[in-house]
């Protein structure tokens, strides 16, 4: 491999990591606060993709701008679903069977709703920049990928700032680390859970809408991404946003450079393989590894 090839691969790994991070962070915050594994995540990504498509086709809204508009819409969808269904689940410090079944059921409903409204044909968002490339010296980057990356990073930074510098963010971190202590100081955990669920669904929709600019999609969209989100969350540790960013980069790096060694069709096998390896050797994720290194140092 030449240096130029390496830098090109590194650049595309980085761009992929941005979108992977946005895709996984919604699941992480929901799991952290509510201990619910959002199996319907892929369904909300699909919904986000079609919403972006509708905004683009009906109103000629730029797909990236459309993705940012999808966020508040899906936020509201999330809060409504929380009020209708999710708040009725028993609260627990462990994922419950009831929550898994509810989210799985929700996924099936969303998927079929997708088939009902949009049919089963593959769709895609095609604009004048879809195929345009930017050259930085020897490095070639797809314009759309770069813009998607920028939007993804901006959203991650915004979430990070909210979590670390607002009362709401502090209450989210408090519930993630110790729910009982949160209740004691007067955090209304149902309200925080509702907003968090909205945020998580909002991020799922955003990720779907951003991915819609890169890949074609149908109502089954999101399934392979759901598996990747699992890998990233396990890698990053289940409860931290910066962990998600690290996990996203590791997976994107492995997948991108994996192309050199295994055929592209086996990419998902690579993700799954990574999941198995991590669960066996590093069940606490990257955070546990750094803690271990710090102890040894």
């Amino acid at each position, binding site marked *: 491999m030449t240096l130029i090839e390496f830098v090109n691969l590194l650049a595309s790994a980085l761009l992929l990591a941005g979108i992977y991070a946005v895709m996984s962070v919604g699941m992480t915050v929901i799991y952290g606060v509510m201990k619910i594994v959002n199996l319907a995540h892929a369904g909300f990504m699909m919904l986000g993709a079609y919403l972006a498509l509708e905004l683009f086709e009906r109103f000629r809204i730029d797909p990236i701008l459309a993705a940012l508009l999808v966020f508040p819409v899906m936020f509201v969808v999330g809060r409504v679903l929380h009020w209708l269904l999710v708040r009725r689940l028993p609260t627990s410090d462990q994922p419950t069977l009831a929550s898994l079944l509810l989210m799985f059921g929700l996924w099936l409903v969303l998927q079929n709703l997708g088939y009902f409204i949009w049919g089963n044909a593959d769709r895609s968002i095609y604009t004048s920049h879809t195929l345009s490339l930017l050259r930085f010296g020897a490095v070639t980057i797809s314009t759309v990928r770069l813009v998607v990356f920028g939007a993804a990073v901006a959203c991650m930074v915004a979430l990070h700032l909210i979590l670390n510098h607002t*009362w709401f963010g*502090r*209450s989210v*971190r*408090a519930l993630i*680390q*110790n729910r*009982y*202590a*949160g*209740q*004691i*100081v*007067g*955090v*209304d955990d149902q309200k925080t859970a509702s907003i968090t669920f909205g945020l998580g669904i909002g991020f799922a929709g955003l990720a779907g809408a951003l991915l819609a600019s890169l890949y074609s999609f149908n109502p089954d969209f999101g399934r392979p991404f759901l598996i990747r989100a699992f890998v990233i969350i396990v890698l990053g540790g289940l409860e931290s946003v910066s962990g998600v960013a690290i996990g996203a980069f590791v997976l994107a790096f492995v997948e991108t450079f994996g192309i050199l060694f295994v055929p592209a069709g086996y990419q998902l096998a690579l993700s799954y393989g990574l999941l198995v390896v991590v669960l066996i050797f590093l069940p606490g994720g990257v955070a546990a590894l750094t803690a271990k290194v710090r102890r040894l140092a």
Partner: protein
Amino acid sequence: MSNISESSILLSVQNLEVSYGPVQVLWGVTLSVRKGHVVSIIGSNGAGKSTTLNAILGVRKVGRGQIVFKQEDIVRQPPHERVKRHMTLVPEGRQLWPKMTVEDNLLMGAFPSTLRKDAVPNLSRVYDIFPRLKERRSQLAGTLSGGEQQMCAIGRGLMAEPELLMLDEPSLGLAPKIVDEIFEFVRNISREGVTILMVAQNVNYALRISQYAYLMETGKITLDGPSEKLLADDYVQEAYLGST
């Protein structure tokens, strides 16, 4: 307690019953706390002392009974409404957020919207009481020593300007020297006019710093009276203070 006028009673609990699933743990607990007093609940492990405090704050669901705080029945109010009315709990085992800074831990004590505007002055008040927390303000709470964690937990409980501060086993798991220090803090906080309801297995200490005490056994109050009387009581001496 019949000679005490109604208005000097800050908290009154009547016939409180609490169950964990099918297992009933509180069987009609009745107690009251006078404004400005330190009141302790003593008793052995599993007697229902912590459950009583959790039920008073509302984090444990009450089956039956009445909780009157500042002349208002609060038994149906969620915990955050009770914190807004200046009732706080320093829970057993501290229950800090280990990966949040000391300062963020403290600030969370003023979380309800009506308390936030005074969070900054209250923070400096807490730092005045516990200068060691000020030194460690940007450290993660999980890296504090046991005694410092207890100070942080008490500090968090003071952030909501409590009229009633409930302390659950403030000395558990701490070295004897630190225990002295913590009880000295409790005494100072009480002198500033904060009413304290305290649960402690350290019966000797609890009875020495409180004015009134309740003995709790298997979910019931079995004895109550001025603390010095309980301290002199033969049964309490034998069963809880280890004298023969």
